[in-house]
């Protein structure tokens, strides 16, 4: 089951990269994708039954525009702080708590935090994340969790948990 998911992903990537549809390209792609699936099938996907639930893909489509909007906002925020002559920054490292369980969800949460305005994830330990914040508004853990994590946590829990 795990190997089938990896085979489909690898074969789709091959099709996108070569963008040719004659039988020679296709057979070589099948062979390479089969080899990849045979070698690395155990470490790529952890819970393969989640890959076949349509609901998760719909939540992912809902998540994408929110993420892109936060990303663009983050860029204007950085532009303001960098181009301002006195540089209005108050940096610090705060600690927040997350309720997500699976590894993939935690990776996505850390990446999302890095791309959102003014935050950069430094380390993760069990359920605590350490976050470098360029403009610290609150040093308390619960308050910082509400400000940073809760925007994405609800949607990511629907996608990955």
């Amino acid at each position: 089951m795990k190997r089938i998911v990896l085979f489909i992903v690898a074969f789709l990537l091959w099709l996108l990269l070569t963008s040719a549809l004659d039988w020679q390209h296709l057979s070589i792609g099948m062979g390479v994708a089969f080899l990849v699936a045979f070698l690395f099938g155990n470490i790529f996907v952890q819970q393969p039954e989640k890959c076949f639930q349509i609901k998760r893909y719909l939540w992912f489509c809902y998540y994408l525009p929110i993420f892109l909007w936060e990303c663009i906002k983050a860029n204007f925020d950085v532009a303001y702080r960098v181009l301002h002559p006195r540089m209005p920054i108050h940096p610090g490292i705060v600690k927040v708590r997350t309720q997500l369980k699976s590894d993939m969800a935690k990776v996505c949460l850390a990446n999302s935090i890095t791309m959102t305005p003014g935050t950069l994830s430094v380390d993760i330990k069990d359920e605590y994340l350490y976050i470098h914040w360029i403009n610290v508004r609150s040093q308390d853990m619960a308050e910082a969790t509400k400000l940073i994590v809760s925007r994405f946590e609800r949607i990511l829990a629907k996608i990955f948990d």
Partner: protein
Amino acid sequence: MNEIIGMIIIVVGVVFDTIGCIGLVRLPDVYNRLQAATKCVTLGTCGIMFGIFIMQGFNSLGIKALVCIPFIFLTAPTAAHALARGAHLFGVKLWEKSVCDKYEEDKKEM
């Protein structure tokens, strides 16, 4: 028409790249530099790729440029995360005007 829209998106991407590099030179310590540079340069390069996709349409060059976008979005924040953790374990202090450092306190307890 597609040429003009693609060109505008590419110009916006290059402007974001410029802001990121100014931040890299100007900000005071490693973590702030990493933050500004990663955000701006990632979105700027993704903008360049998307502009090329709009200029070229669905031929092989455009599709390859489109495939680059998720890879950049997956790899760049992960590299930034690894560098920040490595720098903190290496012993780089935060800027002297920083507000708080919870990670340093927790590292002593462990």
